[in-house]
């Protein structure tokens, strides 16, 4: 009986499976998109009867709708449909799923520079060089353009960047008789002086868990932990365990161990509270951060100033970058030309940047805007009306070259884990650097890439 019924059950299951597939198909393809509205937001139905191309864009900046409105008002043949598909990681996860399953990707997506290689290897980005992208190369700083292109092949149009500067509390610096440091050696001396004057305060916090910022700091020391070439998507250079990286890691690790610098994690409530309460007198940040700081530390608005980055060698002018995004056309688009046009034009004039700068605190890499007197001389209330772009704009022009790996999210996670473990005293910073190198090389090989350790 048992055997018999099992066989019968299997047969019924098979029948049920077939019915299920039919039932689902029939029940659901009828009403189409259903009650929710826009239905399929992937790339598709490119051009309607009137010859107007609709380009679907995934982006997450809250104020982006206004920029889209500006674009749509000034274009008749191309219209943009904005979709908020999640912030950063969430949107990338969806794009990966869509690429893997063969449909569902938008025409255009907001993508951070550091994520581009991971979609290059999935063949997810379209070369828009043939659609006029090469002609706008001169409108962007060279280091940014290098990150989105390879010769005549262009895989994204840059939007904003995050040159790193030193934010400090002018009022508290004055109270404790401190001066903004110009070298990292001075920075350390300043931290010691502050500790002597008031042991409860820290010159800054290391922001444990902020691997992107750390990579920016390594870059600012002249280091380049990764190398990647869009024309050889299966090859990667991993060069994390080197003198420059170790120097940066040990510099911060030592100061944390001595209690000069705090080790509250990035974006922890404590970090936020420390900034709000004036426990941290300085913070090393990207140019787009004031938007966030202004909210969590609203009471301190006006007391902050920006100074150029301290240098490792006096007289140098090395700069780092943290963050920044682009618009990339996906390989699933049905209207590559229109999508490329949107990518090129949406932030390629001055009008949209009024929204981007005023409301979203974006730092433009579009030269005509970034170099305009309006932007350079613009006073910021949060910084006591200091025209901070006089510092950020030159910094953005001299950022050291840097590439990312096709597994940046894994790399960041590894860096965060290993550095945190060194700060907790479980290993030295040198060991952390070696471990990161080893883990990344192993990982790259395990997914079938060719690795060279530079």
């Amino acid at each position, binding site marked *: 009986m048992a055997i018999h019924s099992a066989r019968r059950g299997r047969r019924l299951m098979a029948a049920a499976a077939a019915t299920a597939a039919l039932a689902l198909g029939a029940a659901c393809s009828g009403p189409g998109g259903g009650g929710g509205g826009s239905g399929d937001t992937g790339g598709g139905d490119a051009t309607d009867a009137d010859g107007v191309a609709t380009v679907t864009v995934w982006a997450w900046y809250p104020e982006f709708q206004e920029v889209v409105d500006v674009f749509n008002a000034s274009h008749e043949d191309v219209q943009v449909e904005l979709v908020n598909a999640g912030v*950063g990681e969430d949107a990338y996860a969806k794009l990966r799923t869509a690429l893997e399953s063969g449909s569902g990707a938008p025409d255009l997506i907001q993508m951070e520079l550091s994520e581009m290689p991971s979609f290059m290897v999935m063949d997810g980005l379209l070369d828009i060089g043939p659609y006029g992208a090469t002609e706008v190369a001169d409108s962007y700083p060279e280091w940014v353009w290098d990150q989105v292109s390879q010769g005549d092949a262009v895989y994204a149009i840059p939007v904003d960047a995050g040159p790193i500067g030193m934010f400090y509390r002018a009022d508290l610096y004055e109270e404790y008789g401190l001066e903004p440091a110009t070298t990292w050696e001075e920075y350390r001396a300043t931290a010691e002086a502050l500790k002597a004057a008031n042991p409860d305060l820290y010159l800054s916090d290391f922001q444990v868990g902020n691997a992107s910022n750390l990579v920016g700091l390594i870059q600012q020391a002249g280091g380049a932990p990764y190398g990647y070439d869009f024309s050889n998507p299966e090859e990667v250079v991993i060069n994390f365990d080197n003198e420059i990286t170790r120097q940066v890691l040990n510099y911060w690790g030592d100061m944390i161990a001595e209690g000069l610098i705090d080790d509250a994690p990035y974006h922890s409530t404590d970090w936020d509270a420390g900034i709000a309460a004036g426990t941290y007198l300085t913070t090393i940040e990207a140019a787009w951060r004031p938007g966030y700081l202004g909210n969590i530390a609203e009471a301190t608005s006006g007391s902050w100033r920006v100074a150029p980055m301290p240098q490792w060698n006096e007289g140098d002018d090395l700069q780092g970058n943290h963050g920044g995004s682009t618009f990339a056309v996906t390989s699933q688009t049905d209207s590559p030309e229109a999508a490329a046009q949107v990518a090129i034009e949406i932030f390629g004039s001055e009008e949209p940047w009024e929204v981007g700068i005023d409301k979203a605190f974006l730092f433009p890499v579009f030269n005509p805007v970034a170099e305009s007197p309006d932007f350079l001389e613009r006073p910021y209330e949060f910084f006591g009306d200091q025209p901070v772009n006089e510092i950020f704009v030159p910094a953005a022009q001299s950022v050291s070259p840097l590439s990312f790996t096709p597994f940046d999210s894994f790399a960041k996670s590894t860096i965060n884990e290993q550095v945190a473990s060194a700060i907790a005293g479980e290993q030295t910073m040198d060991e952390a650097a070696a471990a990161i190198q080893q883990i990344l090389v192993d990982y790259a090989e395990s997914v079938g890439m060719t690795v060279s350790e530079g």
Partner: protein
Amino acid sequence: MTDLARRPRAPMTPGRVAVAAALVVSIVYFFLPFWWIVVASTKTTGQMFSSHSLWFADSFAFLDNLARTFSYQGGIFFTWIGNTVLYSVTSAVGATALATAGGYAFAKYRFRGKKVAFGVLLGAVMIPNTVLVLPTYMIMSSIGLVNTVWAVIIPGLLNPLGVYLIRIYAQDSVPDEVLESARIDGAGELRVFAGISLPMLRPAIATVLLFSLVASWNNFFLPLVMISDNALYPLTVGLNNWRALATIDGSAGQDLYPMLITGSLLAVVPLIAAFLAMQRQWQSGLALGAVK
């Protein structure tokens, strides 16, 4: 319920004081986070990071926060509430209907393949969600349902646990003799099920309905993957989006904490209200599985 309760004023014995103290401690513990969110919803972002989190700040920003929550991004919060209600009610009602019929069949009918089917069903409860998400996405994608309401509602119809609960409840609370005598009186199987068994199953059905409702109301992972359009988000994914914007480097200068906190507060209120409203039903339903 017991004699202790019926006595109007029980004398204060050490035992009774200990019980009361234990209850008070547990009330404080379980209520603490709710207290926090109520307090936090009255603060501005600056105050949240500069005042004690369990007590009010100088100013009272609740109404302002409420207004901002409702008006932000063209009132999208209302859209999310609407979506959540749509997803959770349709999924929960559908899942409960399927589970009730299925569980009852397992409890009261002998048919071939039953043992195997039930074994497979129990195994299904143990399968991690992540393994199903990508394949489900691909199936939905191939029939063009990704990023539609169906991509959330249809997978929500599956509730193996509900089948299990109904089965156990039906075994205990629907006596075979009653069914048999109805059959002898000439009632067909359908009438026996609809007319006799269903009313007896009501507490179990209410329970499964409520738990399905909670499961789909709080569902996060599935809609996160399936839905890419802001206007189709349920509350969980929408609030997570605000959280990411508020706490991760995506806010681009927008002050989202107050909306996040106030929105979260508003998101939990309806479920708690539903619990209260259906209390009598589900509490008796929950006895299922217990008495055997």
